């Protein structure tokens, strides 16, 4: 049961490594941003999972509910999501300008152009 109980955390680790791997290995800049997004989403899931208690309800005042999840991580991750969106937007904006300046968004081709000049 232990493995199943930690299911969320396994997913977090798998997503984190998948995202990280994409960032490192992909040459396409858009794919790098996608990888970065997956990497960040894994952290969001990690925060949301940690506030869940077995048998707990949502943190809303209702009759008969004594056990409830911690709402704070949700709030924190709302902030982190905003940061993630801003980062993605900025990254994509930079890619648009890189495409205009270099005519490509492949990392290795850009590097080849840079070492020429």
């Amino acid at each position, binding site marked *: 049961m232990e493995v199943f109980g930690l299911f969320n955390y396994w997913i977090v680790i798998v997503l984190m490594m998948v995202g*990280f791997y994409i*960032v490192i290995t992909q040459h396409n*800049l858009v794919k*790098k941003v996608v990888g*970065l997004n997956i*990497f*960040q989403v894994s*952290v969001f899931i*990690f*925060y949301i999972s*940690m506030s869940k208690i077995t048998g707990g309800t949502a943190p809303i005042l209702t009759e008969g509910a004594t056990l409830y999840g*911690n709402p704070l*991580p949700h709030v*924190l991750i709302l*902030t*982190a999501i905003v*940061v993630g969106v*801003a*980062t993605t937007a*900025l*990254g994509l904006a*930079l*890619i648009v*300008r*890189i495409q205009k*300046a*270099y005519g490509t968004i492949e990392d290795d081709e*850009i590097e080849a152009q*840079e070492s020429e000049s």
Partner: protein
Amino acid sequence: MIQAHLPALQVIIPLIAAPFCLLIRRSDLAWAFSLLVTWCTFAIALILLLQVNETGTISYPMGDWSAPYGIEYKVDLLSAFVLVIVSGIGSVVMPYARLSIEREIPWPRIYLFYTMYLLCLCGLLGIAITGDVFNLFVFLEVSSLSSYVLIALGKDRRALTAAFRYLIMGTIGATFYVIGVGLMYMMTGSLNMADLAKLMPLVAETRTIQAAIAFLIIGLGLKLALFPLHLWLPNAYTYAPTVVTIFLAATATKVAVYAFLRIIFTVFGNVPVLQKEFMTDFLMFLAIVAMFAGSFVAIYQTNIKRMLAYSSIAQIGYMVLGISFISVAGLTGGIIHIFNHAVVKGALFMAVGCIFIKMGSVYIEDLAGAGKRMPVTMASFVICGLGLIGVPLTVGFISKWYLILAALDKGLWPIAAAIVGSSLLAVIYVWRVIEVAYFQPAPEGAETRSEAPMTMLAPMWFLTLASVYFGVDATRTINIAETAAAYLLKVIQ
């Protein structure tokens, strides 16, 4: 009344001023407005430093939500010192920025530069003042996102790729930091630094906290450009507009060093994290590799900006080396080097900016005869170059003196020798510039004498004189650094 709210105003003034800059749109008005704002933040930082000196640590509950639940702003001597450095550099750069920016950024985008500049300042000040680990992440991202934009404003198209690479690595670093914060929250249920420090001894031996430490150190290591994680730095500094390079080189990595100190010595203050043999040795090893590798690579650069960027990596090595001694002398050396390096590197990059505006080049070979053509600028470059090397009567000497003392205290004389050795490498790369500038004749037909305008020379000389003043009479800075170091370590012993 207003005095009680200074810690909040310190961050909120630049934060609110940034969108106003966006509304102003006219570049000269935006400049005047930003100048006023940065000087305000500097005044607030100075008042806070004086207050802390007199009355001790200031704690400010944001929105009146009391400490472990609400966000607490905490100003102790170390954070006040960093606030003064950041806002001081921020306000000295402003008069310089106007002409330099007009040269390097297309006219319609200038007001955007000031918006981003103020946001970046806000983020850096926020990191230094907050007492909440998650709030620190938010400010880390505010400063990072705005600095990516600032770097991308560079004229060269390589500025874009440099900014993009910094964005990728910076985001990974910040995300690692959040993972670390999350793991700490799982075990303690707190985000307040002081509260975490209290709760930490109970859970320190768990695997979760050990993983948290690893994530925090790697994440912040990326941000402060600790040796193997420094790859984003050289291109970002080289291709950014000069003003951006001055500001980021003098403040951004320093603030990351501050955050590192906070996590290690405040949050994990009651738990010997670094004291484990392996950790200090590891950090010390990385620091020394950084000192030598950074200086070696700097020697072979042809672009002065790039050379100074690699030299920054070496200088960060000195700061981390100071931290890794875990003694009052070592930490004093590290903390005082934050100040000293900010002043010296700021002035050096300003000199490069002056050279660029007159000669249109930042390559060493184009500098021939610069000693005659721009004597005022080059004199400043030489003085600050000496400061970078660590010659007596300059600030660099003070920090290296403390680092060597700390090394000898621990009986680590090979490390003391390494500090001297890497300083000798600095002699070589500073000398390469001086040789071309002073001992090679100017090319035919070059203007005989032309200096950058006064508004650029004055801030540069202000920092240069500061580097000499605090090198001759360092009692004030040493007092602050020493007290801050003792304060950080007292929790441990």
